[in-house]
C-alpha cells in the first residue's frame, strides 16, 4: 500500500474563492448576456414561459463557479443532502399528542410528496391566505399531529422543508397566482419594484437589470428561488428563502420584513412565480 495523496481537504469557501481568482476575468459588456463565470462556461438558461418578465430563465446555479456546481451535482459532496438524510428518519418519528408521524398520513414520501414542493407558497382555503412550505409543515404538526410547531430557521424545520422539496427535484416550479392569489401577487410585485433602505434599492435593481454582472467579486443572479432551502457556503448551513430575503434587505440597509409577515409572503409568492418553469434544485449549493 503506497502512501495516499491528498487531493483536496476542502475548505469549501476558500477553495471556491481560490479557483475564482485564478480564472481570467470574463466580464462582458453586453447588456443582454450574463457574463460567464469562467472562460469555458456559458450560463445555460431555459426559455421563459409566456408572460414572464425574463426572456430566458437562469437558475442561480448558472452563475456559480465550477467547484460549487460540481458540489451541488454530486449528492455525495452536496452538504445539503445531510439534512435530507436527517429528515428521512424524522419523517417516521412519532411526535405530539395524536401519536402520529408524517408517515402516518403520507406513507411513501417519494410518491406522496412528489411535486408538492413545486407549487408553494400555495393558497390555503381554511386560512384564506397563501402559506409557505414551512408554514404548511407546521400546520400539519399542530393540526394533525397535535405537536408543537418548529421555530423558523430551526434545524428541524429547515431539514424537513428541504426534504419535502427534494422530492420534487427536477420538476418545474409551478406556483399558481390566479384567483385569490392575485391580490398577493400584485402586492409582491409592487414590493419587488419598491426601493427600500438607506441604499434606496429594489430587488429588481440587481436581479432584473443587472443579473449576470459583477457585484464586487460575485455575480448577480436572477434571484430565483428554485434551489431553496439552499446550502450557503458562507453560512455553512441550509438557508430558508425568507431568511435569504432578510439578508438582502439588511444589505441595502433596510429594516427586513418579519418572517411569515404579509409583506414577506407576498414577496415570496411573486419571486417564486418569476421562476415558474425552472427545475427545483433543492438542496442547492450557493456562495
Amino acid at each position, binding site marked *: *500500500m*503506497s*502512501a*495516499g*495523496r*491528498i*487531493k*483536496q*481537504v*476542502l*475548505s*469549501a*469557501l*476558500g477553495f471556491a474563492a481560490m479557483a475564482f481568482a485564478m480564472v481570467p476575468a470574463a466580464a462582458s459588456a453586453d447588456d443582454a448576456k450574463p457574463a460567464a463565470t469562467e472562460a469555458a462556461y456559458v450560463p445555460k438558461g431555459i426559455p421563459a414561459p409566456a408572460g414572464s418578465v425574463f426572456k430566458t430563465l437562469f437558475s442561480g446555479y448558472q452563475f456559480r463557479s465550477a467547484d460549487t456546481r460540481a458540489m451541488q451535482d454530486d449528492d*455525495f*459532496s452536496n*452538504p445539503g443532502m*445531510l439534512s435530507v*438524510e*436527517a429528515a428521512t428518519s424524522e419523517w417516521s418519528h412519532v411526535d405530539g399528542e395524536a401519536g402520529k408521524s408524517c408517515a402516518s398520513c403520507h406513507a411513501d414520501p417519494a410518491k406522496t410528496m412528489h411535486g408538492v414542493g413545486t407549487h408553494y407558497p400555495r393558497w390555503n382555503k381554511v386560512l384564506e391566505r397563501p402559506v409557505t412550505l414551512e408554514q404548511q409543515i407546521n400546520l400539519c404538526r399542530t393540526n394533525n399531529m397535535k405537536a408543537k410547531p418548529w421555530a423558523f430557521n430551526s434545524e428541524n424545520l429547515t431539514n424537513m422543508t428541504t426534504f419535502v422539496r427534494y422530492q420534487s427535484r427536477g420538476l418545474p416550479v409551478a406556483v399558481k397566482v390566479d384567483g385569490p392569489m392575485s391580490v398577493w401577487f400584485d402586492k409582491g410585485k409592487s414590493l419587488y419594484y419598491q426601493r427600500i433602505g438607506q441604499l434606496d434599492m429594489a430587488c429588481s435593481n440587481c436581479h432584473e437589470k443587472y443579473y449576470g454582472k459583477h457585484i464586487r467579486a460575485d455575480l448577480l443572479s436572477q434571484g430565483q428561488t428554485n434551489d431553496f432551502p439552499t446550502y450557503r*457556503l458562507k453560512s*455553512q*448551513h441550509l438557508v430558508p428563502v425568507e431568511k435569504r430575503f432578510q439578508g438582502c434587505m439588511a444589505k441595502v440597509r433596510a429594516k427586513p420584513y418579519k418572517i411569515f409577515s404579509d409583506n414577506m409572503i407576498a414577496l415570496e409568492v411573486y419571486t417564486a412565480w418569476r421562476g415558474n418553469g425552472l427545475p427545483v434544485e433543492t438542496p442547492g449549493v450557493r456562495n
Partner: protein
Amino acid sequence: MSVPRLRVPKTAKKGEVITIKSLIEHPMESGFRKGPDGKMVPRMIINKFTASFNGKQFFGANIQPSVSANPYIEFDAKIDADGTFDFAWTDDKGVVTKAQAKITVAAA
C-alpha cells in the same frame, strides 16, 4: 455525530489507484466567533483524520480551524491486496467516530 459518508470501490484490480471520498457532519466551530450573547463560542472542530489499511495507517490529516463545516476529504490509494479500510475522525472533545470499508482485489 452522524454516520460518516464514505465512497470506496468494492473491488479493484491489483495495483490500481482508487479514489476514496469521505464526508462527515460536523459544525467545525472555529473558536474565533462570538455568539448572540457576545461571548466567544468555544472551539469545537475535528482536529485529526486517519485512514488505515489492514491496521497500518497510510493517510492522515491534522485539521485546523479554517476548514469549513462538514469536512469533505478525498484522497487516493494504491491497492495491492484484499483488506479493510479503517477511518477515524477525532474531535476536540476526544470523541472518535469510526467507519470501515472492505475491498477485494479482482482478477485482472
